């Protein structure tokens, strides 16, 4: 198994020499006096708390707002590495959007038998109300986060595609902001591609997918469930950076098939809604009738082509963990190209032989619930207990279609500040992609780091932190 080898270290070669992209960082680390990193860490904490960059932790009364730990040592990606990655990402998001269009129209890929019909049509994430609908510019997923891990110098794997409401982009931007305050000297030594253009690109992307009948500059709103949502900070941050209106459900209403917001001077039409509310809660008339978060009638306005919803309802079918295994197939079907980025090999537990093998080797494997997220409902074999192995074996036997199983990937490590020292910790990467009149990929993305020694789980809800991510320019 891959898990038995030493993980790929992004900073050091196996002989102990420093890899080229990390040269300036390595020198800078050597120059730092004792305790400098610890002091930076304290300053960073204060910056984030004061800015209110928090996420809510559900269920606990006291201290419901937490600051995600920020690591002061940046993660660095060389220019040529990034070129490869971004080409692969662009290919992927184009294919996934083509797939969504097809699934909600002629369903050719199903007819061709390349993706099983049952997997799509019986899927909770499939949204029959979207059938036959023509979204502006044919785009379904406008804002995408692709989770990528690295296991070797030239080996990258896509862990999952996030096409519903990928979060974390505000951390990417604030991590950069904090890093520029904390280590300006390190920036001077390096040529780092800017990420600050993201909000402007987001605005351009949203404007470009306004309904075709809109004259002049479209009105754009970010729709949030409100201040008690765990990602509220990000919602307000993005609205602020774009100069867009931040709305809650009750701020909007539908009249005559159009969406309006209630302003100080009366109703004002809204043309593009970047919604951070899940499909189910978007419109009590079309989806869950008990939802108070959304806007009654908004889906009809969308169907009538008077408003653009970003991302479109029903995009979740393309980031379903079971559909994930077909993405290389999907790329070939629509683009006639081979996938540039690898999928993680995934075992199909509904196949009897594969299931038998999985059950036997469970201690070496990662098991994920098909609809799980945030690191919940998963088991990492090598670090789990025997009891957990047994528990998941039973679960798989009971509902083989509810789980996907993958080998434990030996995620690469980056130098990380741990209690005044620097130690390698496992990382992943979530680059952010915008799809409108063109595909715009922000260089870098959000690096998440597992702060616990040896841990492979990087989710913030599981004690992970974040790092500023530097893509070097040539």
């Amino acid at each position, binding site marked *: 198994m891959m898990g038995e080898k030493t993980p790929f270290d992004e900073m050091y070669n196996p002989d102990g020499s420093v890899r080229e992209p990390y040269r300036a960082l390595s020198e800078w680390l050597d120059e730092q006096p004792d305790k400098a990193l610890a002091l930076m860490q304290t300053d960073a904490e204060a910056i984030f708390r004061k800015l209110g960059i928090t996420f809510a932790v559900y269920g606990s009364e006291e201290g419901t707002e937490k600051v995600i730990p920020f690591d002061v040592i940046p993660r660095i990606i060389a220019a040529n590495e990034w070129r490869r990655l971004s080409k692969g990402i662009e290919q992927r998001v184009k294919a996934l959007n083509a797939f969504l269009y097809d699934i909600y129209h002629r369903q050719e890929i199903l007819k061709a038998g390349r993706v099983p019909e049952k997997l799509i049509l019986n899927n909770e994430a499939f949204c029959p109300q979207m059938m036959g609908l023509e979204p502006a510019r044919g785009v379904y997923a406008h804002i995408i986060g692709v989770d990528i891990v690295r296991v070797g110098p030239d080996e990258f794997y896509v862990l999952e595609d996030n096409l519903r409401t990928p979060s974390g982009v505000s951390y990417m931007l604030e991590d950069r902001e904090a890093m520029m305050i904390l280590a300006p000297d390190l920036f001077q030594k390096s040529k780092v591609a800017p990420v600050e253009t993201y909000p402007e690109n987001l605005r351009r992307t949203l404007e470009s997918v306004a309904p075709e009948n809109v004259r002049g500059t479209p009105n754009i709103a970010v729709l949030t469930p*409100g*201040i008690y949502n765990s990602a509220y900070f990000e919602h307000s941050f993005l609205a602020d950076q774009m100069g867009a209106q931040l709305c809650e459900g009750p701020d909007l209403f539908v009249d005559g098939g159009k969406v309006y917001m209630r302003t100080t001077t009366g109703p004002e039409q809204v043309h593009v809604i970047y919604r951070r509310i899940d499909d189910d809660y978007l419109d009590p008339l079309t989806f869950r009738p008990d939802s108070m978060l959304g806007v009654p009638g908004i889906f009809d306005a969308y169907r009538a082509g008077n408003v653009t919803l970003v991302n479109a309802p029903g995009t979740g079918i393309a980031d379903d963990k079971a559909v994930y295994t077909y993405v290389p197939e999907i790329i070939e079907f629509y683009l006639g190209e081979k996938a540039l980025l690898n999928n993680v090999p995934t075992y199909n537990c509904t196949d009897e032989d594969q299931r038998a093998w999985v059950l036997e080797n469970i201690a070496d494997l990662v098991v994920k619930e098909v609809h799980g997220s945030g690191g919940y409902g998963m088991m990492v074999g090598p670090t789990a207990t025997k009891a957990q192995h047994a528990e998941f074996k039973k679960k798989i036997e009971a509902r083989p279609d509810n789980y996907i199983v993958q080998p434990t990937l030996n995620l690469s490590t980056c130098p990380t500040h741990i209690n005044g020292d620097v130690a390698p910790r496992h990382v992943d990467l979530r680059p952010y992609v915008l799809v409108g009149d063109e595909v715009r990929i922000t260089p870098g993305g959000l690096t998440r780091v597992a702060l616990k020694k040896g841990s492979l789980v990087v989710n913030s809800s599981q004690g992970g932190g974040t790092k500023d991510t530097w893509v070097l320019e040539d």
Partner: protein
Amino acid sequence: MKMLGRTAQNLFWLSRYVERAENMARLLEVGYRMSLTSRREGGASEHLVSMMQAAEVDEGFDAKHDVADVDTVARYMMFDPDNPSSVYSCLEAARTNARSVRTAITTDVWESMNGAWLDYAQIKPRDVRGAKLLGLLQWVKQRSHEFRGAMLGTKLRDDGFSFLQAGNFVERADNTARILDMKYYVLLPRATLVGGDLDIQQWTLILRAASAHRAYRHVYHDRYKSENIADFLILRSEMPRSLAHCADFVKQNLDNLGRLYGRKADCQDAADSLLSMVQNTDMEAIFGHGLHEFLTEFIARNNRVTEALSESYNFY
């Protein structure tokens, strides 16, 4: 960009709550100082009671406490989440409002508000008993100044600014009227003492509550006299906490909104009515009519400004 009615409402109440937190601190300071001058048995103080009556929190207090001594009153006024006007409740509400309108306030305004709330939420009531209380009251006032400074120094002079300013001055007018009214509650049972040493001392404390005891000397060059002090806090428009000054600012900001939106709104009439109360009168007339009656009418007209504003600009 058009402003949501909810945003306008949140801005208005954001600055109202900050101003209210400051004024609760001022009121408590007066009540506390007054209570030091005349102790009653068991530590209970009628001054503290009248202070709570002025703030209209006395009923809520009575429901929870038997004795109104410095400790129980301070706790109720400063930290009790069940008291919607406590400094704790005000700062929390202000911070919640600020969070809701992050896109309509500057980073500096947000940071001052967020910082004030985070720091205040850390304070343990038992650590600010006795002599430490005045220090905390001072701190609350300073954070309010910081908030206002950030707002004045960084906020675009747009409609949002006028909603913030309107909230600020509507609340301040309300509080100054209440601070003055406290004198009525304190003195009513012993009207014979008017003009006596105790009377003057109490008026002095009221001036102090409005941070106006030094400014008074500069304006009147005279010893403390009740009619001068009332004049200072009611009619003198150069005094930033006077009713005249507040009413003038409320009107200015509502007129400003009318200009920005290109139409005259009903709330401007309500503001005119408030201002006329302090423009077409003098202290002789006010005392003749009755100070308490005058203040009660002023508070009612001030409340009407808020109602009219809510209707004119679609608060919901």
